């Protein structure tokens, strides 16, 4: 176990350095830099050079990268070139929005998806099943931005039930969460249904029926147990993706989350933000993956062994 933890830590470190290096290379390969954007209207080359030097962009690339790594050790990502605030503070502000969004989306998907999946499985082949599966198939074919536009138009503008954009009140979270939540719920419903129906073919089903335990109950208990791992895998992946920035939904609903923070920074070549957010995202991925693995282990110790050997 110790060995496992140690190798895992080393892997994480390697990935983290790889991520920052990849980001650094990409940022510097991209045409233009922050000084270019900042000096849009300045005509005087001396002034441009000076701003370059002040931002540290005149240093050789490897020196810039080394300085970044040195500061990273102290969790210091520097100050944004355009937002005039420490990057750490910007990430925390963005995380407040994105984190809330991620939690509400996952909860929505879990509750609605499970309910729909159970409902469909118990009514296999009947009207409810067909309706739910139809909706779920449609849900998986809907790009999030399309659903976002639709919900915003109907509930925000036409019915004026909920805020259209922004987060002046907590209700601002409702439409974005429901948008992404519905899309995730579609997948959860499908996974739940499949897992539950799988139970029908199993040996213990016959044994249990022979014992006189109700069929519905077995499907429910064993099916849910079966469904746990695929749902967990799916929601875990969704969770990290959303925490990493639900950029489309954030764009449509005008939320200042991590996704928009990063995309705006990319447009302006705001390197400290880009580097900071990428490290943040990589850390989230590592942590959530670790969480998922630990959870697997809790549910079924065999999986952990299998994954260790993998």
């Amino acid at each position, binding site marked *: 176990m110790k060995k496992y933890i140690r190798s895992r830590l080393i*892997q994480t470190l390697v990935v983290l350095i*790889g991520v920052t290096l990849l980001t650094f290379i990409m940022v510097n390969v991209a045409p233009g830099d922050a000084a270019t954007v900042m000096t849009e209207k300045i005509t005087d080359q001396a002034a441009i050079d000076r701003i370059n030097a002040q931002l540290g962009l005149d240093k050789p690339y490897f020196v810039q990268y080394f300085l970044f790594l040195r500061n990273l050790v102290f969790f210091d990502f520097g100050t944004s070139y355009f937002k005039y605030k420490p990057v750490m503070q910007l990430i925390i502000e963005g995380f407040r929005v994105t984190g809330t969004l991620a939690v509400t989306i996952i909860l929505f998907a879990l509750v609605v998806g499970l309910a729909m999946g159970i409902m469909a499985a118990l009514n296999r082949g009947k009207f409810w099943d067909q309706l739910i599966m139809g909706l779920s*198939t449609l849900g998986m*074919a809907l790009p999030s931005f399309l659903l976002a536009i639709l919900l915003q138009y109907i509930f925000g503008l036409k019915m004026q039930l909920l805020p259209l954009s922004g987060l002046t009140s907590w209700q601002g979270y409702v439409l974005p969460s429901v948008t992404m939540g519905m899309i995730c719920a579609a997948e959860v419903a499908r996974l739940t249904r499949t897992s539950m129906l799988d139970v029908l073919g199993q040996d213990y089903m016959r044994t249990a029926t022979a014992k006189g335990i109700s069929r519905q109950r077995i499907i429910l208990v064993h099916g849910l147990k079966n469904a746990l791992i695929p749902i967990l895998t799916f929601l875990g*992946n969704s969770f990290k993706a959303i925490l990493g920035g639900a*950029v489309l939904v954030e764009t449509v609903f005008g939320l200042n989350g991590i996704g928009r923070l990063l*995309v705006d920074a990319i447009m302006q070549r705001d390197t400290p933000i880009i580097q900071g957010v990428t490290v943040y995202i990589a850390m989230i991925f590592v942590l959530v993956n670790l969480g998922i693995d630990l959870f697997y282990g809790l549910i079924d110790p065999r999986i952990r062994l299998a994954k260790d050997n993998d």
Partner: protein
Amino acid sequence: MEAQNALSQEQVITSTNFYHHVWEKLRENKVAIVSLLLILLLIVVALFAPQIAPYDEGFQDTAHVLSKPTNIHWLGTDEFGRDIFSRIIYGTRVSLSVGIIAELIAMTIGVLMGALAGYFGGWVDSLISRIIEIFGSFPKILFAIVIMNIIGTGVINVFIAIGMVGWTGMARMIRSQILQLKENEYVEAAHSFGAGNTHIIFKHLIPNTLSTIIVNMTMAIPQDIMYEASLSFLGLGVQPPTSSWGQIISVGRVYISTLPGYVLFPSIALVLTVLAFNLLGDALRDALDPRLRRMD
């Protein structure tokens, strides 16, 4: 997951019979056949777009700007006076080619990386696995946005960006499958006959992962189409006058109350296409190997 790795040996042996069997199973599935027909129709539309569309995708009818659907512009016109119906027809080309070409790029990288890691093991495996993790450490859409910003917009660049984002899943699956396949006796046998590594990988191992590759690709194509639409929606897609559904939807939002069709029709085209690929993918997976589950 374990379930994904397990491919039964009998599938490997008689491939002709096997694919015949798959086709038989597919034929029984009405949904799959309808989806397949829809996809074939889309391919025809894409190939013959200039013949089908009443106007060129860039043609600007300055006398009819933002017109409602009429008999000269069936679905109305956009703010430049371009025929929306024609632009949707031409948009099929972008969506389908992104689905296919981007996925081919992703597949090539994924299969190669996966096969190398799985076959050689050791430090090669560690290295490739870390690379996969590094690339997998970004949400895909964000990663694609970053790449598009670096290499610039344009349809070729969309292929590259989406291809570069999508290969990790394929690589993981191929890797674990090759890990199992290389333990087989015929690999040993090939070695003892003096076959080189390249020969074994390309002639023996990769062909045996074909069903995984096919299932993976059909699953990924609709995703890629959605990524393209999303990139175009954010203004990072094709260059004018090329039309793409995501781009039409993005601009059409402005006119959602006055010209709802501007947003509605390309959305329908997009959703139907993704739906058709999704359903066909499901059916193919069931036919090829019912134990392969979508868990990615």
